[in-house]
């Protein structure tokens, strides 16, 4: 399974964190700091995989954002790269030419999209169309409620 997913900028600012295991907040912060440091120090010539403790880190940079997944020993690293790519494609489809700012200002949407793609550290939907449709339908449900309540939600 995927243990956790971190999205961070080139300056090391966290844009999204999804943890599929339970850890105290302090521990999470420590791990995040450590991993951000490791990944940012890697050069272009190096592979996308890092052995960290008993996990494998798979990371890829898209423009100004690093996407980093921590997977277990028996998971397929090459496929994880595809998983990361699929997530970026979903974001792209939803936001239209997604960029870091979209994720900053709509972080809750980024989480919602992730939650339609991955659950409990495993992939739940392999069809791009279905995943995005689920989000759009949910958004519709939200907007309907907003209209009904006649108040902007947030």
């Amino acid at each position, binding site marked *: 399974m995927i243990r956790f997913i971190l999205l961070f900028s080139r300056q090391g600012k966290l844009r999204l964190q999804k943890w599929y295991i339970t850890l105290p907040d302090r521990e999470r912060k420590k791990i995040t700091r450590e991993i951000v440091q490791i990944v940012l120090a890697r050069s272009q010539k*190096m592979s996308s995989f890092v*052995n960290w403790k008993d996990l494998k880190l798979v990371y890829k940079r898209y423009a100004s954002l690093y996407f980093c997944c921590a997977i277990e020993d028996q998971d397929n690293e090459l496929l994880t790269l595809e998983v990361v790519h699929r997530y970026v494609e979903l974001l792209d489809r939803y936001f239209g030419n997604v960029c870091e700012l979209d994720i900053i200002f709509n972080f809750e949407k980024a989480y919602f999209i992730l939650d339609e793609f991955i659950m*409990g550290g495993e992939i739940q939907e392999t069809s791009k169309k279905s995943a995005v449709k689920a989000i759009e339908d949910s958004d519709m*449900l*939200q907007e309907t409620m907003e209209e009904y309540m006649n108040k902007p939600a*947030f």
Partner: protein
Amino acid sequence: MPAPIRLRELIRTIRTARTQAEEREMIQKECAAIRSSFREEDNTYRCRNVAKLLYMHMLGYPAHFGQLECLKLIASQKFTDKRIGYLGAMLLLDERQDVHLLMTNCIKNDLNHSTQYVQGLALCTLGCMGSSEMCRDLAGEVEKLLKTSNSYLRKKAALCAVHVIRKVPELMEMFLPATKNLLNEKNHGVLHTSVVLLTEMCERSPDMLSHFRKLVPQLVRILKNLIMSGYSPEHDVSGISDPFLQVRILRLLRILGRNDDDSSEAMNDILAQVATNTETSKNVGNAILYETVLTIMDIKSESGLRVLAINILGRFLLNNDKNIRYVALTSLLKTVQTDHNAVQRHRSTIVDCLKDLDVSIKRRAMELSFALVNGNNIRGMMKELLYFLDSCEPEFKADCASGIFLAAEKYAPSKRWHIDTIMRVLTTAGSYVRDDAVPNLIQLITNSMEMHAYTVQRLYKAILGDYSQQPLVQVASWCMGEYGDLLISGQCEEEEPVQVTEEEVLDILESVLISNMSASVTRGYALTAIMKLSTRFTCTVNRIKKVVSIYGSSIDVELQQRAVEYNALFKKYDHMRSALLERMPVMEKVTTNGPTEIVQTNGETEPAVLETKPPPSGLQPTSQANDLLDLLGGNDITPVIPTAPTSKPASAGGELLDLLGDLNLTASPASVPAPQISQPPFLLDGLSSQPLFNDIAAGIPSITAYSKNGLKIEFTFERSNTNPSVTVITIQASNSTELDMTDFVFQAAVPKTFQLQLLSPSSSTIPAFNTGTITQVIKVLNPQKQQLRMRIKLTYNHKGSAMQDLAEVNNFPPQSWQ
């Protein structure tokens, strides 16, 4: 109260902050506003406030006061509220929080909601971070949803079930009925999550595994359809249909086929098909191939298929994509033991990877290279590995050096080659060589008698310019001490002999002694080497005497002791000097398991000079116990050879057989006889290899043998009814002072009519304040049933100074020897 600012507004504002302090101030202000809003129980804007709180939480600020608010949002009827509420729960309400369980009821209700997206939120939250209790409470609901026809919910329920099983494995049985039809689904989402669920169940329970083996044909069919079916835009990734599902199925097949001939056979064809038909131009195809290879290697596949798999890995190694090379090396490392020959074919590619730019790839290539070295390719491989050692990053050098030593030891084609290789390693990476490799190397050198002159000459030349690499200098010093005579006589046959004078050799050894770069251990080596040369050199003995006497007042206690003893050798025991400083006998060796094994010898690897009369039996590896000869005054005492504390923690009990096994029982490659041991053979007959007797004679009182300066030594006794001439004494040394006693060595001597054997102590440090003890076992053979008496000598370091004491133990209880 004005409406709280919107989320996006807050984000925009915070991003304008120019310093950390400014940001903190904004956040604190907003938090205060949010807190008062929470206190007012404002339903309208709760959602907005929690959303803002979650943003600030991501920036690293505390957000625990929002936990209960998340619960309220979840309980709300509005979808928007629930969405943010559940998100907040997943971020803030993990199972370690007290209020976590309060979610259970809300989740239960939402699992039965009329809107599937609400059910989805509940399933997602439960499946990502539900605690064990929550899983127990709600497993029934999840099981129900697993059987629904709504594929949106079914796929989520499957993954939720996976989480439940991970948290509460006992509940696995409950999901079994629902799995019946899972693979009949057309929906890929459900298929994928079902395969994950089945995989989880099979991994956790062998019963489930055998139960699900019958699914192999169905899985094979599904996989086949994926490969053969035409373009399906919904699931296509670079021309491959649903690679995620393909990989998951391959993984499940791996688990089902493991150790099972029938299943493995049933999947042979499809594996071959996937292996040959998958497009390899993009990463996605290679991901599938990678998983296929892993499956082929793990099940009972036929040899043709295995070779196919290894060849795929070999092709991976040539791929431009470094990720793929990395993955190939990792897999090859796993298979090199079982499919050695197949991997050998790719040896040259692997060796090329030593020059890769990626550190992890280099490391794997190095490990793999060592695994592939054998008698046939040793010369070529060693060339590459030495070149690698030269140019690699420092973090590799120690491991590489160790690996080279091990490989050289196993497959060296000739002694000269072996020594040359060692020399090369010492000179290129001399400071990274592990300290315990030094005794190994010395032992190796002594064994190659015909190479002594060559070796010492090369070592001399190596340290001539630079004596900073400690292991190199240590080995060189030792050799120069031992074979200095060969060096100056210019006897070398293997290469052009150098013209070296005695003065030049002493120059270099003295430089080592003086140099700030030399470690204390190295200096010890150098001083002893200089001393040994006093019998090998003829013109420079006075110079040696001078050097030795200078170090008699060295601050370094070890050097001081040595120098003082050597001085004594010159002054009082000059007639013994040549005998004592003779060539070292060939050292016996235990088979090494790895380059880090310490050579077990009967004593230390370098001679410690005696200040006593020579032991009665000729050449023995010297040991400090012989000092006791002097102490016990006279020839009626047999020397005892204690075993030095080994690097591994020794048990306090007697491994008598192990001990003697170390000492000599294997035949040595050289013709020199093994060092003599003074224990007569029948000690072996009388005793079993177990530390204590099975028929212990009833309670013999224990005695305090020594108590002084905070050090107390107690003797406890055991005797066998079947062999009454043997007494086993267990000593326990304790320390009541406030500082630890380190480097503790216990020695004992008994009158001639007794035989004594001292086994390895449990450690060499006695902790302070009586918090621990050192135990050591002494076995005494007393066939004449004489009254037992014993002289003991204790040496240890305490409060920064070396302590030494002698004592006589006369208070042995009669039951211990009568």
